[in-house]
């Protein structure tokens, strides 16, 4: 087992800077997701760790050993690719056995490991088939089994579920979690799908434009986004950002007053999760004009505006609000994030 230290990695393609001094430490046995929109550099970072791409500068250490300059095979890792990359001219058995064969493992060990990995991924019955006789989901299982069969110190996964259809993705996600929990391998998982990252990870590193914006547990990242980008990227609907005036260090919302962060100037951005509100009668509540009300079954989704700024909030399905209504909202004090209107960074939490 091994921890991974990513130390000030930079990568530029010509004049384009894909990664700008990215540093990240992943503990032994931890599952960390690199989450971000396409083009944020997450796959590039993963490929640098794997040795498939060379960093412009910086260091990667796996188990306290610098791996910069080592070919992929000497880094003690396994990888699951987005397009599965199972070898089409080998049976499933030979695919899963590939890494072990390259390590010159004896036949008994190969057989034992392949059967174990195949059992974990439920592909025992396909072992003598060729990959072109398998569905996408089955191929992805083969790719994961191939990675687990070598019992790697580090497992890298590059959007492994993105080529599967929605239903299969959900199923594989649950299964991956079960399998990887029992394996206890240090895992880096690249995805643009926040639900995958939230559901699977011990910690999430949110990336944007070649920078890690925030690293934290899923709950932490969700509730206390470090930047406006993180709040807007994670959560469905995304976090609401409402610019409000500060007077005498206080922000007024309806009848309620909130202590604004000391650092704030004349204005501050109030970051509000859509579900961190409840309905309140009007003079007391913060006024919201509802443009569209969508009953979703499990909840009621309202799109409209507060202080003429667009917001989306979620109320219990039992509430009756119609499109065009004006309603009052009571904000949950403990779930407000204050952000700087200029830098987009959040202020340290203030006592309510």
């Amino acid at each position: 087992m091994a921890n991974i230290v990513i130390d000030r990695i930079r990568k530029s393609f010509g004049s384009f800077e894909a990664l700008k001094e990215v540093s990240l430490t992943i503990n032994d046995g931890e599952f960390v997701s690199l989450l971000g929109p396409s083009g944020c550099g997450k796959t590039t970072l993963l490929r640098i760790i794997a040795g498939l791409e060379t960093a412009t500068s910086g260091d990667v250490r796996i188990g306290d050993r610098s791996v910069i300059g080592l070919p992929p095979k000497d880094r003690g890792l396994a990888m699951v690719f987005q397009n599965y990359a199972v070898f089409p001219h080998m049976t499933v058995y030979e695919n899963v056995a590939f890494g072990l064969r390259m390590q010159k493992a004896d036949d008994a060990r190969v057989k034992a490991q392949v059967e174990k990995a195949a059992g974990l991924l439920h592909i025992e019955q396909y072992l003598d088939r060729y990959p072109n006789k398998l569905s996408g989901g089955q191929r992805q299982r083969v790719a994961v089994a191939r990675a687990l069969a070598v019992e790697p110190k580090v497992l890298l996964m590059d959007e492994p579920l993105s080529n599967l259809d929605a239903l299969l993705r959900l199923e594989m996600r649950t299964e991956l979690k079960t399998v990887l929990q029992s394996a206890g391998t240090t895992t880096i998982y690249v995805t643009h799908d926040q639900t995958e990252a939230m559901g699977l990870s011990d910690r999430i590193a949110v990336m944007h434009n070649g920078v890690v914006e925030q690293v934290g547990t899923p709950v932490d990242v969700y509730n206390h986004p470090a930047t406006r980008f993180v709040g807007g990227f994670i959560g469905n609907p995304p976090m609401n950002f409402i610019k409000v005036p500060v007077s005498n260090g206080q922000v007024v919302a309806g009848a309620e007053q909130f202590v604004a962060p000391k650092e704030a100037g004349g204005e501050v951005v109030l970051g509000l999760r859509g579900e961190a509100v409840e309905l309140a009668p009007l003079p007391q509540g913060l006024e919201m004009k509802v443009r569209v009300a969508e009953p979703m079954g499990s909840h009621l989704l309202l799109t409209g505006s507060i202080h003429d700024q667009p917001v989306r909030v979620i109320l219990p399905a039992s509430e009756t609000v119609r499109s065009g209504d004006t309603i009052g909202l009571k904000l949950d004090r403990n779930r407000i994030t204050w952000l700087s209107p200029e830098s987009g960074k959040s202020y340290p939490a203030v006592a309510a």
Partner: protein
Amino acid sequence: MSSKTVSAASPAGFVSSRRWLVWSGIIALCAWVLVPIYLVALGALGGRQGVYQWPKTGLPTGISIEPFLLFLRTEGVVQSFLNSLGAAGITVALSIILGAPAGYALARYNFHGKDSYRLLVLLTRAFPLAILALPLTVSFIRLGLYDTITGVGLIHTVLALPFAALVTQGIFLGVPKELEEAAWVFGCTRIQAFFKIVAPLALPGIVATAVFAFVISWNEVFAASVLTVRNRTLTAYLLTVLSESPMHYRFAGGLLLILPSVVFIFAVRRYLFAIWGISSK
């Protein structure tokens, strides 16, 4: 649009007319290839009478292997046949050994002047061989390559190599890079990954390239005629000898030219079809 309505109205009729079209296409293509070969064979095996017989029946009457064997016993035929095989063998081997790595490099690496390199490779075919014939002859004589099969093989390699490089480039592009990367991650060096993963998947295309190189060499007559005197290839030999030969000899020569290509392609046909479907998606 209209074909859709038709197929909905009478699917059976649509399917059968489609099948009829496919089969007539297959038959036409087969005939295009086979009829000339059949006529040549008829001329070669029918003997003197068969060739001059008129009107032609098109039926294999009075054929025997005898005229063909007689032709084979003619002095120089067997030797030039072997010479042709030798030159073609050299061409195939060198085209693959030199062309496939070039194709691989073009497919996998980005380097300065890649496009100009590709153009340059093709430009080697822009010089007419006729212009090069004299200087080539002179240098071949100096190098001791004149009138040797090695020399002819080298020239044929020059003709086949540009295509070998460009065709294999396309083939290697068809093997997903991720497969190779997966091999690296799971313990292969670059060379191991090439031979374990890329080569087996690219094999059908490489074999097709080999067939192509073989045919180029086998059919080439100009360079072979200019650069040899006694060690002629079959095409060069037939060109000089046959104009003075009786008609059925010419047909026998033609048949001998056709046969090896047919046998060769038949032998490697298995590799011409991708067995696994190259993409892993």
